[in-house]
């Protein structure tokens, strides 16, 4: 199996492993740094030759990054892979929508455990991204800094003494830092408290958005919270601020879960076990259904209502539940919806079987 296939077909990713601090609520933490090359116009303004030049410059600098990380980085040219394969990378959070839509001279470098990626010619020439499970912004920040230092040793980075790192979009100026945390908030969703978090966060310089869905409905109860400001504060201050807010949200979520477990225990137990049942035995599952059921499964595991299944199964169910992932695995872009749903149910069943410790109650 070649490197690209391994990257695309692995249903286990290092940043979704149910480990880390506060992992009952915080699924993963992410750091992204935006950087640009001094001499070339930013990607939105660059012609194809200039994009290619940026790509080549980065390629030349990558060995230094590999040395700094002590890890091999796989290069993937967006132009050389199919739209479906790009979607898989997007669903695994390795590339952004921007790279998906404009593949010309766009590249991503990614390590084997899929928690470090460097995007080339996104909005900015360089986007460094590091992911880690649970609430932990320091480790990925240090890792991203290591990548940044290695690149900066080889390349002339656009930097201004007063304004900091220069970026294509003024909303990233200064530190170029976007720190974000992926939260699982079923308690807040069921007790209808999510909107208050979404409304308060801008006052704290943070933005909350559902990972899937919209304001009305959020299948999977997954939310992303990230810093909005990037200038005028140090990286450490920005992540401290985010961590403070996240800790508060975690406390609220736990309280909501406790209330649910106390006042409607029977109903909750029924819901989570039904989810286990459906995921274990259903023959057809839609994308949205898997998101919702996986969320209940995870809630049941975190509240210790479900025993006998290892919590790590959640990450794999989430990744394998994506249609693009399944279509790519089947090497067929033209599957009908029913065929995909059948494939999805099959995969989810297998995963649950694999993670079943013992199921007797």
């Amino acid at each position, binding site marked *: 199996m070649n490197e690209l296939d391994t990257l695309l077909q692995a249903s286990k990713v290092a940043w979704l492993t149910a480990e880390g601090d506060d992992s009952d609520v915080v699924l993963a933490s992410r750091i992204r740094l935006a950087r640009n090359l001094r001499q070339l116009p930013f990607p939105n303004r660059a012609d194809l030759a200039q994009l290619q030049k940026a790509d080549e410059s980065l390629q030349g600098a990558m060995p230094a990054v590999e040395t700094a990380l002590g890890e091999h980085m796989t290069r993937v040219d967006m132009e050389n892979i199919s739209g479906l394969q790009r979607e898989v990378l997007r669903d695994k959070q390795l590339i952004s929508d921007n790279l998906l839509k404009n593949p010309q001279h766009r590249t991503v470098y990614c390590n084997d455990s899929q928690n470090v990626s460097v995007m080339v010619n996104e909005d900015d020439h360089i986007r460094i991204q590091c992911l880690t499970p649970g609430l932990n912004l320091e480790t990925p920040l240090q890792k991203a800094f290591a990548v940044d*230092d290695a690149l900066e040793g080889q390349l002339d980075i656009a930097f*201004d003494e007063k*304004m900091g790192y220069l970026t294509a979009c*003024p909303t990233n100026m200064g530190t170029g830092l976007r720190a974000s945390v992926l939260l699982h908030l079923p308690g807040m969703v069921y007790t209808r408290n999510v909107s208050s978090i979404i409304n308060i966060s801008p006052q704290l310089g943070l933005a909350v958005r559902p990972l899937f869905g919209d304001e009305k409905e959020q299948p999977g109860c997954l939310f992303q919270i990230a810093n909005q400001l990037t200038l005028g504060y140090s990286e450490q201050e920005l992540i401290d601020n985010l961590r403070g807010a996240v800790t508060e949200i975690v406390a609220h979520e736990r309280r909501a879960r406790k209330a649910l477990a106390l006042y409607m225990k029977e109903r909750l137990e029924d819901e989570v076990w039904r989810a286990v049942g459906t995921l274990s035995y259903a023959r057809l599952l839609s994308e949205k259904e898997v998101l919702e059921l996986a969320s209940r499964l995870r809630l049941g595991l975190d509240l210790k209502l479900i025993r006998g299944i290892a919590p790590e199964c959640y990450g794999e169910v989430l990744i394998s539940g994506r249609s693009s992932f399944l279509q790519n695995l089947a090497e067929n872009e033209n599957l009908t919806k029913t065929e995909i749903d059948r494939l999805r149910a099959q995969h989810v069943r297998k995963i649950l079987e694999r993670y079943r410790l013992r199921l007797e109650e």
Partner: protein
Amino acid sequence: MLCDDCGRKEAVVHITQIGADGRVEKHLCESCAAAYNDFVGVQQDGRHVSVDDFLRGIFGSAQGQENKASGGTGELSCPHCGMSYRDFRQTGKIGCAACYDTFRGQLEPILRRIHGSSVHRGKIPHRSGGTLELKQTIAQLSQQLKACVEQEEYEKAAELRDKVRALKQELQQKEGGQDHE
């Protein structure tokens, strides 16, 4: 024909939907039709407002003020990538590193409006950051020095004073060296 929903404006969109309830006809005005996402099959994505829209607005209003003050910056364009201020207003994106120098006067108020500040206080590149890293270290140490003096930790303060002195000398040498070039 007036719109079925609001009954005020002229209906311009006519939809016939055949579903479980049989045949349903709808005649809608433009604004009401826009609300019928699923009905007309308009993708949700299309309605989302992106951050670029806001930036465009900010760029636009900043230029308005600028025009009043200095009689127009429309002709100003970046010598490196050829981007003009008008292009910013359209795309909400900046063209290249040199643009920041060209449009510094216009961009700083915008940055202050977005971030509440226009001064970077974070990481500095070792190579292209120039003497800034050194200056920042000196500022940090001086602050520690002051704290030590206040708490009467004179031994530690003396240590810090020597460090600051050495760094200041290094800075002078570096800056002096640059002047000669």
